[in-house]
């Protein structure tokens, strides 16, 4: 039956077969639902919106039975956040961005870089970093030490700016 419906939809059935399939389809609620579903699926696959928003009853009922998921909405990234990231990268040109993150990747650069011990290393007589331990945020310390403006500190301020701008 399913195969017949599918073939009918695709216009692959001869006149007599088509007549029989239509009669069968119209005589069965289950076959009507399948017929409707095949068309919806076909529409969606062709990139059209489904011709009818009405879904078969059991699908609607199943959706109703689904629990409502309440999840915190991810806040859209503000212009500031993007600027902050970019500006942090800029500040890092004065500093040591990737100092720890790029450990072991600079051995083939300048001899001076190779000599400089740029990778974070456990100091003698101390245990190694525990698995999953985060490297400390050296850039924040560096900015504070060099008294470089750290744009990341403006996030809250910029939220106000964004609010003001939309008023």
């Amino acid at each position, binding site marked *: 039956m399913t195969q017949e419906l599918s073939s009918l939809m695709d216009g692959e059935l001869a006149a007599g077969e088509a007549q029989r399939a239509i009669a069968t389809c119209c005589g069965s609620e289950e076959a009507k639902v399948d017929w409707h579903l095949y068309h919806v699926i076909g529409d969606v696959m062709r990139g059209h919106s489904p011709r009818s928003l009405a879904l078969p009853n059991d699908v609607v009922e199943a959706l109703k039975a689904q629990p409502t998921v309440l999840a915190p909405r991810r806040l859209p990234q503000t212009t500031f956040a993007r600027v902050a990231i970019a500006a942090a990268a800029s500040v890092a040109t004065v500093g*040591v961005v990737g*100092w720890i993150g790029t450990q072991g990747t600079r051995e083939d650069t300048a001899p001076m870089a190779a000599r400089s011990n740029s990778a974070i290393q456990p*100091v003698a007589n101390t*245990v190694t*970093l525990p698995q999953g331990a985060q490297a400390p945020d050296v850039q924040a310390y560096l900015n504070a030490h060099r008294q470089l403006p750290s744009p990341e500190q*403006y996030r809250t301020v910029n939220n106000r700016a964004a609010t003001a701008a939309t008023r």
Partner: protein
Amino acid sequence: MIRFAAVALVACAAQAAPGEDPLAWLQRAAQAARGVSYAGTFVHTNGDHTSTVRITHAMVGNDEHERIEPLDGPAYEIVRKNDEMFCYFPDAKTVRLDRRVTARFFPTILSGTPTAVAASYEVKLGPTERVLGYECRWIRLEPRDAMRHAQSVCSEVQTGLTLRARTLNDKRQPVEHYTFTDLKIGPQVARPDMKSIFEARVKRWISDSQPREETKTVDTGWTVTNAPAGFFKVAELRRTLPGREHPVSQLIYSDGLASMSVFVEPNKPARAAEASSEDGATTFFVRPMGETLVSVLGEVPIATAQQAARSVARRP
């Protein structure tokens, strides 16, 4: 005629190179960074990181005006009048009011007096070289112990302004370098040049003065009981760092030339092991102390950072 002679004498005295006294050269270099008007671009190299900065500096009356514009990456600008710093972020439409805690921006080299520097460094005069078309005398600062790096500054003969500075590690390898790549010295540096290029737009920007509040010296309750020889505390602050829930205490120590910051904060997420890294002249050392995390960052050898970090204690 007498008046002309007197003026000429004063002018000569102000410009004359201070003979062969290394400390006098150092003193003049320190004064020139503040008192001389200049505009130019310098390149800073630390380890394998390089950045280019445009700087304009002028004395107007007794006020020191300066505009600093990093030329790499997204635009921002620092306009300073004495210790008041205005940091402009055009993309974020934000101007931040900050306060300079210590004089740390090139060509300012010293944060202490030449006499204090001489206690930790042997100051010698090197050769005279031609740099950017100027006659320039090298001043060498050799450490008297292993707790600091050697440094050299090249002081312009007429004004004393530092044109180049370099830091050497204990193997005499250069690890940090500042050099002007173009420079104009003299009163032709006008005050309008000191204004932010964003000045006209800034009225519509958000102004944030919290950083200025954070740079006020406070009692953090922490102290370094065994500071490395020659290092003295120059500032004690409590500041907000990105990504931190709690304020971070920052104690800045300096020997008059090199400086390091000691950061104390809650040890969250908990770290168990000490760790260190070096990049160029900059050293970083982190030391967990139970529920407290001590981090030291500065232009000092690793042993200096370790000694400071390992003697952090609650102030009695």
